């Protein structure tokens, strides 16, 4: 099969791939670049386990061909925190039992990450609508919603503290 070059920036790092054009972005990330955080749950863009951030938008990486992401900036769950300093959302998912088997979690966290930038002060209803592209089979969502609400609160509090410090 004929291959083509695709370059993209993943978690801040420039990557060059030589892949078949039909390679799905999720496979490019998982199998070629070994970012296995994004998972495959349905392959039909219903479950959201493969959600990553592409040019500042949440997308389902199972329904994008790698060459469509040529030149894109991609952020995966591996790129939002470090083992020493988790992202607030990661912390809050741990704190509020927002996960069980962990399979939907990377997609859920990446969607929350973007959602809270789109809507920093969401109501519970808005959170539920905002993550409605992500399925979870374990938690019944209640603690996921709780985790995201808590993360929003914490992010806003931290922002206030920063503002004060600057002032």
């Amino acid at each position, binding site marked *: 099969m*004929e291959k083509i070059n695709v370059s993209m920036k993943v978690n801040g790092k420039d990557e060059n791939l030589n892949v*078949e054009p*039909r390679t799905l972005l999720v496979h490019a990330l998982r199998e070629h670049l070994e970012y296995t955080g994004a998972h495959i749950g349905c392959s039909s863009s219903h479950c959201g386990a493969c959600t990553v951030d592409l040019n500042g938008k949440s*997308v389902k990486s199972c*329904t994008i*061909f790698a060459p469509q992401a040529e030149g894109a900036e991609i952020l995966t769950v591996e790129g939002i925190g470090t083992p020493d300093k988790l992202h607030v959302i990661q912390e809050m998912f741990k704190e509020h039992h927002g996960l069980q088997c962990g399979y939907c979690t990377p997609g859920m966290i990446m969607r929350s990450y973007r*959602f809270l930038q789109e809507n920093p002060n969401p109501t519970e209803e808005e959170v539920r*609508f905002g993550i409605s592209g992500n399925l979870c089979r374990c938690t019944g969502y209640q603690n996921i919603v709780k985790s995201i609400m808590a993360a929003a609160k914490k992010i806003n509090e931290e922002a206030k503290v920063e503002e004060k410090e600057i002032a």
Partner: protein
Amino acid sequence: MIPSAFKFYKPNSIEKAVSIMKDFGDEARVIAGGHSLIPVMKQRLTDIKHLIDLSAIKELKGINISGKSISIGAMTTQVELITNENLFKSAPVIREASLQIADPQVRNLGTIGGNVANGDPANDMPGLMQLLDATYKLSGTNGVREVKAREFYEAAYFTAREDDEILISISFDAPIGGYAYEKQKRKIGDYATAAAGVILNVDKGVCSSASIALTNLSDTPVYCYEAVGLLTGKKIDDNLLSQVTKSCVEQSDPVADQRGPVEFKKYVAGVVINKALKRAFERS
């Protein structure tokens, strides 16, 4: 769930895209957001050998509003339709309908062009474009031509678009009056069991102009001419709206699927249409 192999093109102009389509005929397909196309390719229900990504063509993007004329580039995403405040001021029904399509991630990539051009009767935008009496601009080997949305759809997945043509933009006049887009579905991400869009312009209780269109209630979107005729010039009351609803339902021709049998869909269509009529009336 792996598509068969294809060659990938990313032209930066409409002309280049059209010329690739001309070269390969029905072996070529354009891809916009890909959320209708890629799932079908994954199931190998279609054999595409040449895939043309339209995302590098700048002319296909953007929302232009000048006075009451609105023009939307085919590659405009649903999320752009939702978040554009000027568009919301001019045609709020678009946001209302778009928010009922798919889910946040899909709306980030799904485009108005892909949604209308695919010819899938389950898609919401074709019905919405009937409602707005939109005009589609197509570009092909023989130049640019315009087709009315109400004349574009022939059967499921069959449209007036020629193999070498690309939908480049959609235009319509800002609708006047109350509006509503009502959709019943089983869950987020589902297609409509029945959906209806209504625009009602009312002057002192009398309907001066109206538009009604249905989604997923036939093998093409349905524009309800007769019902619009029944409404126009009449004083609006519950009785009239019931008659109008009945007329719309008569024009529907849904098929049975996992959402339910025909009888159910027609009944729900009536409920959804009536709700849309009432809400549009309230907003008029």
